[in-house]
């Protein structure tokens, strides 16, 4: 019995292959977008983990010097005092065609557990004699690099693992090391480190540049996008499943009349849905994997550019990821199909078998939807009022968006009713009335479109606002015409003297790494100079800020630090060595994940005399002549000199990369929404024939009907777009004022970009026009034949 019944149920799909394709494609796309994003996140997280495992660094305390360097004799000295420390040399270097992070380890003393020492110890003699390791991708990127490197997947991309002596050689750090790591177990009764090495800073395990922490917000953004895409995909599935149930009501009734118990019928339909879920899920995983593989290089670039996070450009396959993706698909299918199944279970045996719009069939459902929208809006208000943190921010975003999506059909129905009342002429009246009546069938697709459009407007507005602010800020911050990187202190002194002799200004860039208010941070020195007084952008400042800074009577902090610790001008910040200092002002520092403080140059030099000058910002009226002189007379290489334009271009490039992936996902989401609309229109077009046939019989031509059908979809899409605009701007406001502040620590002013909206509207309309074109064209072409079938089939 079950077999026969199942055959009958499945025969529906054989007769409606397009509907089946839409159902599977919707589910597959939802799965693909979701699991693709998850794959990206997982890959990046795995990369962070492998970076930490390389030295087992995450779990180890470290000793660092504020200058970032110390003599390697410190290592021997502390070892001889009984401290189980290991030396590490780390630095950026150009090897072959790529800039890489060179990591030099001392395998004989490295604490156990790191994958790096394990690699080294597999063939210690060759490691000590100069054979290093790098990820195959890094090797490919470097090309010929002058080192003896072997491929190893355990080394993060962008990193090269070598013996410490070799790293000192390549980085020109002979006799110096970057830091010491402390083994977890130390002997008791040793001379305390504070006494032995008072100038070294002990950084407890887990603090410092924790990549996973820094990049969390980035991944949360991706996840939110993935969920949005999944939701949009579910709208497709929901409408396809609803339609399939409705069209088979007659069949259900017949089957039950012929003695198939309701329970069996429900079970069969559940099995059918599970089957589709598995099929579509598998397809979606393949698509998601491909999508992730396609996007990963961009994500990797973003993460590397933003945080220096080592993410490989090639994707691994992870079975857990696949299982989770499939589970998500089945859950989505259950959500989409559960409602239809529930209706079936509560359907009276002899309910009318005529297709009726299920959403319309019950005004209760509409009321429930409106009530849910109101509840979600209230929840959003509550979150806005009392919520805190990034997760609450995203919850607020989700609640607000869903509320808007749910209330939209109600508003659209109202607008259509108004239009119908204003309409003159029978066709116009019919047009509006019919649009209103068919709204429930299209509303899911329109809601998906709304979400996609709003996301586009919101994210687009955020990115554009960010970009506009960022460019203005760059112009203020990058005022120096030329930047020079000295190779050593002697050269730094030469550059300073040379530039001073030419009557031009050399502004040193010096910094030490520090922990400020428990966060990884950097302290910079700032010379008292008109360059900063006139240009340095401030968000909030005390009067006489520059004089007080120059006199060493306070510090400037960046917005991130101000936000995370609730500091403002006049508050007091405790800095290493300097002690408690008043905050003189807060400046914007877009794109920097770290906290930052700025002191006057004299104060800095007095406290950190050893901090090397990392860079000179040179002011010059004739920058090209200065660059030429630096090269010709001082013998600087072109690699040491960057001009202003290049620096800006580099900063902008990093910025663009940050949102590259956002843009790609935006486009994908919009495509899915367009597909949802297409699916809805296509499935609807079959049923529409019955409604259109009388009009044909009454004397409207099939072409006119096709035109009206297309017009209806475009009008509904246009109304959705109009509604999406305020929703998108609300989203942008939430992103700028809530999410960004929580995730990155900076707040941006919202700017409006109507030209972008126009472009988006044109694009969306084009998408809708494409979606409506096929069904309308079919009606146009086959109208008479198809319409006649309605009458011919009536008997």
């Amino acid at each position: 019995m079950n077999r026969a019944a199942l055959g009958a149920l499945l025969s529906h799909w054989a007769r409606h292959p397009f509907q089946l394709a839409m159902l599977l494609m919707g589910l597959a796309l939802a799965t693909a977008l979701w699991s693709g994003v998850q794959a990206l996140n997982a890959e990046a997280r795995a990369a962070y983990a492998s970076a930490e495992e390389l030295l087992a660094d995450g779990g180890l305390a470290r000793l660092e010097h504020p200058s970032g360097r110390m003599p390697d004799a410190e290592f021997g000295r502390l070892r001889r005092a009984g401290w189980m420390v290991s030396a590490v040399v780390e630095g950026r270097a150009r090897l072959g065609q790529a800039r890489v992070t060179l990591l030099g380890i001392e395998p004989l003393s490295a604490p156990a557990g790191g994958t790096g020492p394990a690699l080294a110890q597999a063939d210690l003699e060759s490691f000590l004699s100069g054979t290093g390791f790098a990820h195959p991708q890094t090797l490919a990127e470097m090309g010929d690099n002058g080192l003896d490197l072997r491929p190893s997947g355990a080394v993060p991309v962008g990193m090269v693992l070598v013996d410490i002596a070799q790293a000192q050689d390549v980085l020109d750090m002979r006799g110096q090391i970057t830091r010491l790591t402390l083994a977890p177990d130390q002997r008791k009764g040793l001379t305390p480190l504070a006494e032995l090495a008072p100038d070294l800073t002990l950084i407890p395990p887990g603090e410092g540049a924790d990549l996973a922490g820094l990049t969390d917000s980035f991944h949360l953004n991706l996840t939110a996008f993935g969920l949005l895409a999944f939701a949009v995909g579910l709208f497709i599935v929901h409408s396809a499943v609803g339609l399939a149930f409705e069209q088979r009501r007659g069949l259900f009734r017949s089957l039950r009349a012929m003695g198939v118990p309701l329970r069996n019928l429900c079970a069969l339909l559940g099995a059918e849905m599970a089957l589709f879920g598995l099929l579509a899920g598998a397809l979606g995983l393949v698509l998601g994997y491909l999508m992730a593989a396609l996007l990963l290089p961009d994500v990797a670039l973003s993460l590397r550019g933003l945080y220096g996070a080592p993410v490989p450009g090639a994707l691994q396959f992870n079975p857990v990821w696949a299982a989770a993706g499939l589970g998500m698909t089945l859950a989505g299918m259950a959500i989409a199909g559960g409602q239809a199944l529930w209706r079936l279970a509560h359907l009276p045996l002899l309910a009318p078998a005529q297709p009726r719009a299920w959403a319309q069939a019950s005004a209760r459902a509409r009321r429930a939807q409106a009530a849910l929208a109101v509840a979600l809006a209230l929840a959003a208000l509550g979150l806005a009022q009392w919520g805190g943190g990034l997760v609450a921010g995203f919850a607020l975003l989700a609640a607000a968006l869903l509320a808007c999506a749910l209330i939209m059909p109600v508003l659209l129905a109202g607008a259509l009713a108004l239009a119908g009342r204003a309409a003159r002429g029978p066709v116009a009246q019919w047009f509006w009335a019919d649009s209103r009546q068919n709204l429930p069938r299209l509303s899911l697709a329109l809601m998906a479109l709304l979400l996609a459009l709003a996301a586009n407007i919101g994210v687009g507005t955020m990115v554009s606002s960010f970009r506009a602010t960022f460019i203005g800020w760059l112009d203020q911050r990058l005022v120096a015409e030329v930047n020079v990187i000295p190779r050593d202190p002697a050269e730094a002194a030469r550059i300073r003297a040379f530039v001073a002799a030419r009557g031009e200004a050399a502004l040193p860039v010096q910094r030490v790494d520090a922990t400020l208010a428990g966060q990884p941070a950097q302290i910079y020195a700032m010379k008292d100079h008109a360059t900063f007084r006139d240009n340095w952008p401030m968000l909030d400042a005390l009067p006489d800020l520059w004089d007080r800074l120059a006199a060493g009577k306070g510090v400037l902090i960046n917005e991130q630090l101000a936000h995370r610790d609730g500091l403002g001008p006049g508050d007091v910040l405790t800095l290493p060595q300097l002690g408690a200092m008043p905050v003189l002002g807060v400046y914007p520092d877009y794109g920097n994940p770290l906290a930052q403080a700025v002191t006057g140059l004299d104060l800095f030099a007095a406290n950190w005399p050893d901090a090397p000058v990392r860079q000179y910002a040179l002011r010059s009226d004739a920058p090209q002549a200065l660059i030429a002189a630096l090269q010709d007379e001082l013998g600087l290489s072109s690699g040491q000199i960057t001009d202003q334009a290049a620096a800006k271009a580099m900063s902008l490039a990093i910025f663009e990369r940050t949102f590259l992936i956002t843009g790609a996902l935006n486009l994908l989401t919009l495509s899915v929404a367009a597909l949802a609309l297409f699916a809805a229109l296509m499935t609807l077009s079959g049923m529409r024939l019955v409604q259109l046939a009388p009009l044909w019989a009454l004397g409207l031509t099939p072409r006119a009907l096709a035109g009206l059908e297309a017009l209806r979809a475009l009008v509904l899409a246009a109304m959705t777009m109009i509604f999406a605009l305020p929703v998108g701007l609300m989203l942008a406001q939430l992103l700028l004022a809530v999410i960004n502040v929580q995730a990155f620590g900076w707040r941006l002013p919202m700017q409006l970009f109507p030209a972008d909206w126009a472009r988006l509207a044109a694009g969306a309309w084009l998408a809708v026009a494409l979606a409506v074109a096929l069904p309308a064209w079919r009606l146009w072409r086959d109208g008479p034949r198809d319409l006649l079938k309605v009458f011919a089939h009536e008997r």
Partner: protein
Amino acid sequence: MDQVLRLRDVTKSFGQGDARIEVLRAVSLDLGAGQSLALTGESGSGKSTLLHICAGLEPADQGQVLIGGTDIARCDDVAAAALRRASIGLVFQHFNLIPSLNVAANLAFQARLARRHDAGFQADLAARLGIGHLLARYPEQLSGGQQQRVAIGRCLAVRPRLVLADEPTGNLDEATGDSVLDLMLELSAQAGAALLLVTHSPRLAARCDARAHLRAGRLGPGAT
């Protein structure tokens, strides 16, 4: 007599080659204003096809279909639709009404399409059809008999020269069907419209002025 519908040697076949079925073979008939003709025949005898051809919903292979002197078989789609709008009222077993419009709007729809809407006439029609109290309702809220009354009202509201009805009572019980048919006959006669009724029921056919029978694509005299 004023000939409203005149068919001359209308031929129609479906399919191709061996599978070709000749549905209509040189069918000719005349129907005058105020006259009613019942077209009977077995299922598949081509009754509905003949009706569709008369309405311009389907083209004929050969022959003339003159409606008030215009050969609808020679019309293009636009012209056929215009002719249908202005001169033909169609009533089917199902699918007559526009679900998104209420009864009043449905009644007025074709008349307004043909720019021939007359509120007084329509109200009168509605009253005579006994649906005057249903004007604000939607089709789904009506019984089958009520729906067909609205369909007849809508088709007569345009004051058509030709009413084509395809089993208009096929979905109704006998008593309701009889009263609906009586109304249709009476009102079309009063309006001077010619009525072509396709039915398989001899009982209903007997109520018409004339009868014709389709058998194997050829038209013969109907039972009297």
